[in-house]
Every structure is written in C-alpha cells, then in structure tokens.
C-alpha cells in the first residue's frame, strides 16, 4: 500500500469497483444469514441491525473514520490524523497506489460496515434498537477505526512496525467483531429462556441463501484486497474458494461423527468458518495452506460454538465461535504457512521462517482481541447506564418485530406470533386504532 505511483491503472480500478460492490452485498447477505437463525418474532429486527449499519457506518466513515484509519499516523502507529475529515483534500484526481483514493476509501468503508453488522449476531433478539443506533457509529470510531489503522494504516504498529501479516482483515474484521460480540453479549446478558427454551433457527433456506451471498461477496473482500487485477488477486480468489470448501467439509465431518447427521446449518456455518479463517491468510499462504486453514477452522469452530452453553454466555448466533475463533486460527496459521511467493518476503515456520513470524502474529492477535473486547465492554456498559441497552422483558417476550418496528415478518398466525390478520381491514380504511407499544 504505497502512495508512490501517481497514476491510475484502469484494470485495477475496474476490478476494485466491482469488488467494492461485492463486499457491500455481504452485509445484506449477513442479514439473511443471521435473520434465518433467529425466531420468527424478531427476524425483522435482526435484518434491520445489519441493514441500518450500512447507513450509520457510512456517515461516520466519511465524516472522520477514513481519516483516522488511513490518514498519516499522528501517534506512535496507533491512530491517523483528522486531516481528511469529511474526505477533505481527496478528489477524483487523488490516487492511492494504482486506484483512485475515493475508491480505496469506499472499498475500506464496506469492510467497516460488515464488521459492525457482524457484532449484532451476539446480541440477537434482545437489543434495544435505539441503543444499537448509538452504539454502531461510536463503536466504528473507537474500536474498528483504531484497529484498522494499526493493521493497514500508514505507519500502523502491527503491519508496518511489528511486521505481522493480515491480508484481508482477520484482525480488523473477524477478531474485532468476535471479541466485541463477546463483550456485548456479556453486557446485555442472555436471552430470556437461554439454555432452557428451544430457540431453533426459523428459516434455514434463508440461512443458506445468506451464506451463499456472503461467499460470493467474499471474493471481492479477499481478492479485492490485492488492490489490483493481478496474480495475487487470483491466488487470493482461489484460496478463498478452497478454504470455504474445506471448512464446509470439516464441519460436516464433525457433525456426522458427533451428532449422526450432516446438517444444512452445519454446511453454511462450516463454509463461513473457513472463509473467516482464510481472510487474513488468503494472500499470504499457498493453496495447500489454504486447504489446511479452512479445514482447521471448520473442525475447531464446530466445537467452539458449544462453549457458550458450558460457560453460560449467550453469543446467540455464534459470532465468537465462528468469527473470533476462526479469525484467530487464520491469523495464527499465517505464522506457519506464509510463503515467499505470496508475501514477497516473509515466510512461516513450515517454509523456513522460524518461530518469529508466529510470535508476531500471536502478539498482534492478543493486542487486537484485548483492545476490541475491553473498549466494547466499556462502551456497552456506558450506553447501558445512559440509555439502557436491553429491550424490556415484555418486548423480548412478544418479539422485537411487533414491539419495536410495528411489523411482523410473516402473514400467518401460527400460535400467537404471526401477523394480526383480522386487523387488516380496519388498517386499510383508517389509521390503526390499536397502538403498538413503542420503544422508549
């Protein structure tokens, strides 16, 4: 990511334009992936937490986020300056590497968006929507932006100074969202009935559709991170496909052995786990490395998702079990599988690089995980004290769709959590007379 070349390459720019659109599609994909896993009474709220993140993060990113993350370092590799606030000083003629700076900033914005949306899976079915609207922009600025500067910002301490590697966001995206999700679900506490009631995913086809859109968008995420239309992008693209496949197979293998059935939810989860793990490593490991990274994530994450029941934290949709654990696996395995042909220099333990690269990865992972967990926990507590971060018990029982958004997802009245169909004629003729209790 040098700023030396001052001319735009049209091929690189064309690919990055497409890749940016692909990454943005991942957030609606994630909304479907998550939405299918919750119960019918709060599916719209789950979709909204992702969808609204697109708008919230975009505003703060353009206002200050991009500048703090990618502006010139102002404090020991920890944070960028405010010189580009409001995108000032950046116009159509500005160039970053071989692409327009505006495009690079937009590409990076789509990463910030999905990272915020990922956190919502840990606090499904019980988050006060107004508190989420406050949390997302503040969190993006105080958690996502600093970590991104450490990893990819000019002079950031993790990559530029320490020399650790992260190609497409194992640390800023996966570990940050996972550690933040853990912190936030501890602040909010478990859903009513956690570990007691059956909380089955209400729409598995929706989960599969979401996972498919995520996988599709992930090619933009990983191969786009080459910031050019070149061989490295192609290698990252292939590694992304390979790791998703071995992740899927690994998870299904465990399920067949442990539970006796290969499940669709397991297939979707395994593919995502493999994709999470290959995110940091897709541009640093060989194809063999990618196959191992995906398989390791599929197998380990399929066990990690059950820790919450033993340790009693309600990470509802397994942001910790898939993104934190998968992100750590993928980031650490760079220390073993990094290959000179991919990195242009650095090598992992298995390719003669010794133990130092692994140590660097470990240090970086620990710092990012601790920072994201600590700051998110503090921010969550602060918002909880000031506004209340959790929906009322009645809202949670009835479902957030009806009580917060005054909508229901499905028009069939199954056992009390469908739409109030017999009210439709009244509503069509006049304003609804039945006032739905709104969230304070």
């Amino acid at each position: 990511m040098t700023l030396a070349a001052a001319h735009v390459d049209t091929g690189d720019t064309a690919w990055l334009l497409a890749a940016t659109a692909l990454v943005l599609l991942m957030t609606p994909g994630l909304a479907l992936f998550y939405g299918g896993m919750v119960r019918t009474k709060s599916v719209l709220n789950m979709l909204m937490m992702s969808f609204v993140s697109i708008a919230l993060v975009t505003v703060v990113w353009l206002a200050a986020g991009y500048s703090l993350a990618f502006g010139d370092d102002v404090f020991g590799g920890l944070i960028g300056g405010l010189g580009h606030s409001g995108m000032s000083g950046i116009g159509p003629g500005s160039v970053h590497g071989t692409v327009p700076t505006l495009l690079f900033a937009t590409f990076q914005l789509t990463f910030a968006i999905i990272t915020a949306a990922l956190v919502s899976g840990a606090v499904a079915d019980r988050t006060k929507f107004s508190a989420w609207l406050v949390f997302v922009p503040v969190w993006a600025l105080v958690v996502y932006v600093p970590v991104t500067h450490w990893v990819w910002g000019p002079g950031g301490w993790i990559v530029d100074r320490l020399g650790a590697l992260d190609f497409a966001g194992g640390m800023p995206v996966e570990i940050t969202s996972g550690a933040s999700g853990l912190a936030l679900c501890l602040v909010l506490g478990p859903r009513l009935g956690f570990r007691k009631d059956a909380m089955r995913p209400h729409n598995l086809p929706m989960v599969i559709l979401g996972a498919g859109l995520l996988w599709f968008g992930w090619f933009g995420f990983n191969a786009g991170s080459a910031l050019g239309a070149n061989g490295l992008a192609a290698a990252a693209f292939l590694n992304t496909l390979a790791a998703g496949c071995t992740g899927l197979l690994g998870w299904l293998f465990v399920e067949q052995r442990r539970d006796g059935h290969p499940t669709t939810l397991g297939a979707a989860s395994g593919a995502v786990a493999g994709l999470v793990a290959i995110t940091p490593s897709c541009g640093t490991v060989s194809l063999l490395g990618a196959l191992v990274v995906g398989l390791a994530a599929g197998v380990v994450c399929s066990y990690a998702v059950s820790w919450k029941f033993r340790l009693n934290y309600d990470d509802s949709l397994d942001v910790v079990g898939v993104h934190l654990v998968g992100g750590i696996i993928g980031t650490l395995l760079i220390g073993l599988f990094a290959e000179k042909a991919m990195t242009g220099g650095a090598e992992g333990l298995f390719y003669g690089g010794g133990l130092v690269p692994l140590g660097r990865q470990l240090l970086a992972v620990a710092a990012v995980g601790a920072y994201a967990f600590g700051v998110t926990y503090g921010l969550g507590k602060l918002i909880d004290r000031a506004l209340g971060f959790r929906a009322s018990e009645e809202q949670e029982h009835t479902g957030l769709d009806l009580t917060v958004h005054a909508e229901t997802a499905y028009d069939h009245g199954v056992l009390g959590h469908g739409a109030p169909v017999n009210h439709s004629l009244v509503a069509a003729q006049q304003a609804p007379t039945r006032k739905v209790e709104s969230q304070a």
Partner: protein
Amino acid sequence: MKLITAIVKPYRLDEVKTALQELGVHGLTVSEASGYGRQRGHTEVYRGAEYRVDLVPKVRIEVVVEDAVADDVIDAIVGAAQTGKIGDGKVWALPVETVVRVRTGERGPDAL
C-alpha cells in the same frame, strides 16, 4: 347425532376424506394440530445443540353425523388412517344436542 373427532397423521388425510365420501358424509372440518401420545416427540440438532421437540404435527378431523352411521364412520376413519405404527392417533365420539345450518336456519339432522 354424534360429533366424531379424529386426530391422525397428516399424510393420511386424503385417504380419510375419500373413505368418508364413499360413506356419503358430505362435510367435515379439518384443522392443523400439534400434540403427542405414546409416540412422544423427536430431537433436532442445530450447531450441535440438541432440541427436544415434544409436539408432533397432526390433523384434527371433525364431522357430525347421525347416530345410526356413527360406528361406520368411526370404522372408516380408523381403517383409512391406520398404518400400524406408533403415532397413528385417536378417534372419539361425543353426543351433539343440536345443529343449525346457518344459511337456512334448519335444525337437527336436516341440517347435516
């Protein structure tokens, strides 16, 4: 008159309907139901977490008939719904005091 209520496996509904039509029963009411008997429920596994589902889907068929044919109707339902496996369901009959056809106001057996 008798109200005959049958709780049967959903996929036997068509056979039961056909059997009742052959007996000359002109109308019936069907609703979706959930419940369990000796069959109990089943288990489902999501991301390794096992859920016990106690209630299994059934259909409830309700039909009002004259006393004289009640036993034949019950036999027809049982014959059509029976698979011999656990979970085939139940059929029971209750006396009915009166029936009114809403369209015409006819009462009693004429309303059937």
